């Protein structure tokens, strides 16, 4: 005769099994002897114990799952999270069951950022001991690639209240220790280069104030357009001024708008442009010009400046080589949808001409009205080296100046 098994040897395993069945959401019953298997299926397939909805914020995810026997979480733990919010810049952290917050990162350990995570897309996160790595559910960014936008992005600059290092540029006002405007225009511009625009636009809004010039507009990434926007109702309220041998704004490539600024670059130095393109295209509107040691605006090397309407201002004393300059195949063209007006606020002298073209460039430009034409001193135009100045029927005196225009080496002026 064998030993008599104690009751616990039979009852304890049964309690374990019943507990597992109940934990899976089933009602234990003697009539169904397949409940343990069913429970395992529910736990495994339905992720019953490892899925939770973010109860926190866009940058601090808090998820509650079934209480765990081991805390803190072990490396290798994996849970599904519904973020509820789209991912933001500046980093996101995740806490499970009230535990410590750990950064949410991609496989290359780069923090998730704008465009990576959609609010209603479940994300599978694995804890590696120091981070929550996104294993699945990131919208489309391959680690190492630029995050793609899924909506227009707005960035803010305020020279008085902003900070280029501590604030994320996502708000025009200071909202917290990390949320607020950038301080410099360049910082705002640089932020746009971090994203694949994916068919959307980015706006960099610049508050009233004075800013240091030498701003470099970068190559834009992906389909879309970047807009640098000051005060379009009062362009002289947002002043960008360069000193030394710098331009106020320089664009090397990409698709940009520049609207609502006062630009000046008095030098000393020969590169004192208000706005110059060496590539890409730029739509401009509502610009005011102060003195420039080179040109008010224009471009070289097949770039294109489109004058997209609004009010242009030439200040008294805003002397320059030319108001408009295009060379080496560049173009300055008008917008037929909205002709710009030009206000001349006092005596101004152009060393070369009001409008100047060289080496196969084209200026096809007319202002709908020009005030105080008699205040402009210098040649009306200078068209040189097989370039063309077309005034769209503006006549022989389309541009202001107290000296006649000139055409040299095949340059043409079409009245």
């Amino acid at each position: 005769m064998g030993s008599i098994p104690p009751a616990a040897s039979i009852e304890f395993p049964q309690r374990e099994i019943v507990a597992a069945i109940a934990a899976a959401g089933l009602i234990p019953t003697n009539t169904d002897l397949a409940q343990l298997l069913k429970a395992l299926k529910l736990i495994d397939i339905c992720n019953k114990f490892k899925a939770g909805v973010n109860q926190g914020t866009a940058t601090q995810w808090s998820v509650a799952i079934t209480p765990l026997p081991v805390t803190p979480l072990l490396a290798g733990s994996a849970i599904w999270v519904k973020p509820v919010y789209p991912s933001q810049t500046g980093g996101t952290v995740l806490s499970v069951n009230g535990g410590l917050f750990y950064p949410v990162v991609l496989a290359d350990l780069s923090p998730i950022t704008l465009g990576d995570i959609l609010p209603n897309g479940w994300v599978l996160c694995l804890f590696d001991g120091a981070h929550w790595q996104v294993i699945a559910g990131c919208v489309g960014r391959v680690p190492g690639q630029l995050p793609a936008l899924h909506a227009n992005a707005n960035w803010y600059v305020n020279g008085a209240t902003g900070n280029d290092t501590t604030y994320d540029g996502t708000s025009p006002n200071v909202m917290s220790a990390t949320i607020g405007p950038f301080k410099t225009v360049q910082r705002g511009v640089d932020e746009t280069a971090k994203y694949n625009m994916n068919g959307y636009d980015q706006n960099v809004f610049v508050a009233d104030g004075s800013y240091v010039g030498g701003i470099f507009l970068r190559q834009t990434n992906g389909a879309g357009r970047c807009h640098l926007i000051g005060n379009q109702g009062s362009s002289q309220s947002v002043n960008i001024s360069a000193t030394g041998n710098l331009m106020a704004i320089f664009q090397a490539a990409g698709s940009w708008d520049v609207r609502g600024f006062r630009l000046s670059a008095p030098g000393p130095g020969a590169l004192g442009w208000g706005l110059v393109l060496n590539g890409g295209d730029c739509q401009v509107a509502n610009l005011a010009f102060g003195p420039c040691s080179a040109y008010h605006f224009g471009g070289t090397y097949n770039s294109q400046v489109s004058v997209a309407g609004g009010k242009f201002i030439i200040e008294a004393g805003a002397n320059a080589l030319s108001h408009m300059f295009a060379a080496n195949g560049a173009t300055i063209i008008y917008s037929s949808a909205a002709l710009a007006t030009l206000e001349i606020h006092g005596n101004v002298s152009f060393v070369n001409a009001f409008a100047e073209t060289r080496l196969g460039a084209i200026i096809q430009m007319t202002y709908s009205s020009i005030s105080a034409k008699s205040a402009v001193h210098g040649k009306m135009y200078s068209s040189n080296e097989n370039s063309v100045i077309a005034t769209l029927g503006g006549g022989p005196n389309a541009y202001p100046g107290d000296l006649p225009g000139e055409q040299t080496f095949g340059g043409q002026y079409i009245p």
Partner: protein
Amino acid sequence: MYVASDWYWFIGGDTGNVWSSARAMLLPVSDSTYTAWAAVDGNFTQTVASMDELKATMAISFPAGTLWTYAADRRFRKASGGVIITSLSPAAFYSDPVSRNTVNSAYNYAVDNPAAVTQWKMSDGTFITVDKTKLGIVVNTMAGFVQSCFTCESNMVAGIDNGSITTLAQIDAAFNAISNVFP
């Protein structure tokens, strides 16, 4: 897109009327063709300070845009269109400004060198031999012809200014009536 042959201008601050290059006339802004044109995206009414500025624009871009510039253009084309002197050749002498100057130079040379003869190239590619006498006929005939073209233009301008000339067709008829064939 700006098209000189069908565009509109405000002249000298007058915003109640527009000049139409297509019709070479001043029209009220209520003109239906103008209002329809102005409503098209991309069209804008240009401004010039004076009619003289508009004439300078049309002279280069679209002479038929005003009656005055059309008359000047017709005069230029007529005067430059060649002269036939039947006693010298059935073919036409070139009468463009360069050719007229060349004729004058050749005649002056012949005056100083009476024995000289010149092989003159005609508009059909043939050559004729001309001496001082024949060059004198060419110079005088051509000068008279060109002057008749300028006289016609002068009459057209007077007629435009007094309102008796109002269409391009009238200008065409006047210049077409000038013969370029001489004995």
